[in-house]
């Protein structure tokens, strides 16, 4: 279906949906047992067995020449972010996570788990060749990479079914050397300006630590989320005036009560050596700082000490910040987001 009111609705004639994911041969129950285990003290996440595109491999997407396609890209994997590009083609980003952006030309994007991108791709006007559509798994996330793991996967933009379908030629030997477009620099099409100074600020540091049972857990500050005995929303609805008292939800749900229509600023510091996407339910958010930026410096803080956000020393907040609902925090870096608490409810930030 076409979005006739999208600003780019007249700029394309065909549409494709492409999903990207990781794939495990073992069931989650079994993976959880080996992941959360005294025998995994470093908290290494289970490594997938394969990577898929549209839930399969080696697909060809037949295209007409000189035609503009809207391609909706979704990473619905469990763990691994992936780079996406098409050999010899550039494209324009027009949407991220449901927010239309000014058309932004690039030849590569990085899609973390749960993120979405819509791009406009104009095909060539010759039909003599097919072109690899390449996904590269972010190997910086993977603890041990066995030789049989195929990190780079080729599917094809197919101009001619009878022409060869060659495998991608990898331009680098390590995914950290790839140069994706930094989504922080995207400008929303509606040009919503930077939200005003916050009414409420939440500062959290994400860290992975082992508890006394020897298992590794993820913490925001000193709390690792533990589900309550009663769904939090039901506590809200049955606590009367106490519903605005954070204590009724229990310490380990890490509940923060916000005033309706507060401008909320959340500072996320990453004390872990790996990058992590974080997602806010019920909202999208402006990203006003991310350090280091996505690109060649993304891993600059990975060794050494974490670099937390310093309110007295940071990059200038953009006048029109990018908005999305899932954003990657760099290894031992940080980001700062703002949103308005205009949607009553109980919403995870995870």
């Amino acid at each position, binding site marked *: 279906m076409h979005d006739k*009111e*999208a600003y780019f609705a007249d700029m394309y004639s065909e549409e494709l949906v492409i999903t990207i994911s990781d794939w495990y041969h073992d069931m989650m129950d079994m993976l959880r047992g080996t992941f959360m285990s005294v025998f995994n003290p470093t908290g290494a996440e289970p490594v997938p067995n394969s990577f*898929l595109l549209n839930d399969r*491999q080696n697909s060809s997407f037949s295209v007409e020449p000189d035609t503009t396609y809207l391609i909706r890209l*979704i990473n*619905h994997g469990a763990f691994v972010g992936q780079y996406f590009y098409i050999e010899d083609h550039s494209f324009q980003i027009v949407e991220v996570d449901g927010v239309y952006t000014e058309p932004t030309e690039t030849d590569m994007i990085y899609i973390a788990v749960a993120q979405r991108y819509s791009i406009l791709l104009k095909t060539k006007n010759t039909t003599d060749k097919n072109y690899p559509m390449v996904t590269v798994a972010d190997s910086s996330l993977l603890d041990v990479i066995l030789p049989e793991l195929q990190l780079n996967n080729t599917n094809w933009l197919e101009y001619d079914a009878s022409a060869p379908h060659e495998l991608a030629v990898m331009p680098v030997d390590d995914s950290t050397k790839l140069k994706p477009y930094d989504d922080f620099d995207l400008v929303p099409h509606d040009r919503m300006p930077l939200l005003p100074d916050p009414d409420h600020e939440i500062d959290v540091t994400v860290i992975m630590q082992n508890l006394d049972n020897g298992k590794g857990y993820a913490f925001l500050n000193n709390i690792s989320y533990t589900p309550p005995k009663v*769904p939090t929303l039901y506590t809200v609805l049955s606590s009367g005036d106490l519903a605005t008292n954070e204590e009724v939800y229990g310490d380990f749900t890490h509940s923060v009560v916000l005033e309706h229509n507060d401008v909320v600023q959340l500072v996320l510091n990453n004390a872990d050596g790996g990058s992590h996407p974080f997602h806010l*339910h019920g909202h999208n958010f402006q990203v006003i700082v991310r350090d280091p930026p996505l690109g060649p410096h993304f891993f600059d803080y990975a060794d050494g000490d974490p670099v937390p956000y310093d309110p007295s020393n940071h990059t200038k907040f953009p006048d029109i910040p990018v908005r999305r*609902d899932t954003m990657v925090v760099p290894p031992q870096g940080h980001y700062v987001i703002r949103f308005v608490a205009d*949607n009553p409810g109980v919403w995870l930030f995870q």
Partner: protein
Amino acid sequence: MWSVQGDRGALWLSALAAASLISNICAEAKTVTYDFNVSWVNANPDGLFDRKVVGINGQWPLPMIEVDKGDQLVVNMHNGLDDGHSASIHFHGMFQNGTNDMDGPSMVTQCPVPPGSSITYNFTVNQNGTYWYQ
């Protein structure tokens, strides 16, 4: 019992064509209903290993949900998993404005749905773009 987030499917939305140039109201907002029976199926997408996966209506990959902006989306989910796993659906990126109880995460906005039981997700989709469900 713990909640199986199951598999993921693509969901995308588009705005409705305006009925006239004068009004911004989407006159044709409709109710779109999906019946999802969640059960185990087999799959081998990389050709290396056949395994069971959480399917919907006997299908994997999962069905795509398509709606227009302004539509009422109704998803009747039945948990047909036969090995004790509970289930729920989170529609990632949906604002659920006024319908927090439809957001999906177990023990946050709902109880997990045990095998043999059902839940109906029913909410208005007032946004455009590309999303997914889990």
